[in-house]
């Protein structure tokens, strides 16, 4: 965004962000699983377990349902690709990654939505009862979660007078008082609920369930195997990583690099990893203490998140 960023430095930051999300997403999932196990009184798997799972899955044979079309094979690729694009352009490590001007909040939110829709279509495409059921449930929740995510970031864009994410973050770094306004706190609550819903975590969905009838997200991917499944698991953990990292930079922006230079980037990387780890531990600790919501209560929760987000926008407009 500023002319001080050279094109090469911008591109390097984008590549670093993508690599960070590809590696960091599975590690975040592993961290959350380990924390959960520890709180249950178990030793639990190592934090790198999701990476071990991915390595094994990537080399396994994959099966395709007999009647599935090309959509089934395309869905995992789309999920990973859209998340990678978000990881490349979103201001996670620095306020100016390559193509930072394109990191518009609408673009980012709907790129993430495109991944969910692709996955739902892949679930439908199998023609199995559970695939269709999971897809319809996931879209029911997604239809309410996406606007809540969009509107909660919109609330942050009101004081910055821009829907560009780097501009929002630069703005809140320049005006620290913005961070404690009512609209921030309301938007923060809405954002957390959306992360939980979008990533299929408790209390919206139980990622560890074996009961098909209670599944939301797992039901869509029951037919995927081998490298397709590896892509889906990678894509999902990347999504969780991107959403948590976005949360970190939007609501706790300190530490993000605002000028080029390896030393700024190093500080930014360490602070981002620390923030994401703290948020991951917090989310996992919260998950241990709650039960899954009944399916018909989930839209109420999501509507609550949407109302919080709308209130955030209103208060931003009124108080501005």
């Amino acid at each position: 965004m500023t002319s001080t960023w050279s094109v090469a430095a911008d591109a390097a930051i984008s590549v670093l962000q993508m690599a960070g999300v590809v590696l960091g997403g599975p590690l975040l999932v592993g961290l959350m699983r380990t924390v959960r196990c520890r709180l249950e009184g178990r030793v639990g798997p190592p934090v790198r377990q999701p990476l071990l799972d991915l390595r094994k899955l990537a080399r396994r044979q994959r099966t395709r349902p007999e009647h599935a079309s090309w959509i089934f094979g395309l869905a995992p690729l789309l999920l990973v690709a859209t998340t990678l694009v978000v990881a490349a352009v979103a201001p996670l490590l620095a306020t100016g990654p390559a193509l930072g001007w394109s990191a518009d909040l609408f673009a980012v939110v709907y790129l993430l939505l495109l991944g969910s829709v692709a996955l739902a279509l892949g679930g439908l495409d199998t023609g199995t009862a559970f695939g269709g059921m999971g897809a319809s449930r996931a879209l029911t929740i997604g239809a309410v979660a996406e606007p809540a995510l969009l509107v909660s970031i919109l609330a942050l864009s009101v004081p910055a007078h821009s829907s560009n994410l780097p501009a929002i973050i630069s703005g809140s770094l320049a005006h620290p008082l913005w961070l404690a306004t009512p609209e921030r706190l309301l938007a923060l609550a809405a954002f957390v609920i959306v992360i939980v819903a979008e990533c299929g975590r408790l209390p919206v969905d139980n990622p560890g369930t074996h009961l098909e009838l209670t599944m939301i997200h797992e039901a869509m991917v029951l037919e995927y195997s081998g490298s397709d499944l590896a892509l889906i698991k990678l894509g999902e953990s990347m999504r969780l990583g991107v959403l948590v990292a976005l949360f970190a930079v939007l609501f706790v922006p300190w530490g993000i690099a605002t000028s080029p230079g390896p030393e700024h980037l190093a500080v930014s990387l360490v602070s981002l990893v620390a923030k994401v780890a703290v948020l991951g531990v917090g989310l996992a600790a919260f998950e241990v203490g709650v039960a899954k919501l009944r399916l018909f209560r989930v839209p109420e929760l999501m509507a609550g998140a949407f109302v919080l987000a709308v209130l955030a926008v209103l208060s931003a407009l009124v108080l501005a």
Partner: protein
Amino acid sequence: MRLRTLVRRWRTHPAAIAPVESPPGIREAAARHRGSLQLRHVDAGSCNGCELEIASIFSPVYDAERFGIRLEASPRHADALLVTGPVTRNMAGPLRKTFDALAEPRVVVALGDCARNCGAFAGAYGVEGAVGDVVPVDLEIPGCPPAPEAIVAALRNLAGS
């Protein structure tokens, strides 16, 4: 406070699982899995004694998940089939179908004496045969029911962790 369990006070017995010898085919599979093993469990007609022991290996005391072992909801996600009980006539078809649904390379584990040789149900009118009569078995875990330590040790060998 429960948060203390983050650093210690786990209920898992660190010494509960001793390594055991495993056949060469299992060592090959372990080299493939390298610390990550997903299982699809099929109850082919068990008395549910083995199911209780399977449930207990994922409890805090034995915690098989620390070796990268997990049960999966779909055979498509699984590396190995974990079969319990003698195969009843009604379950022979579903067992074959589940086996076919697994992606290659796949492993079949027969858990408990009934799965190995029909055990107490040998010759019963509703029993089609042992698991080995319906699908090819790669690993047997003896016992009626097998002790959780034995199950974790055998699966850990298969997981290569």
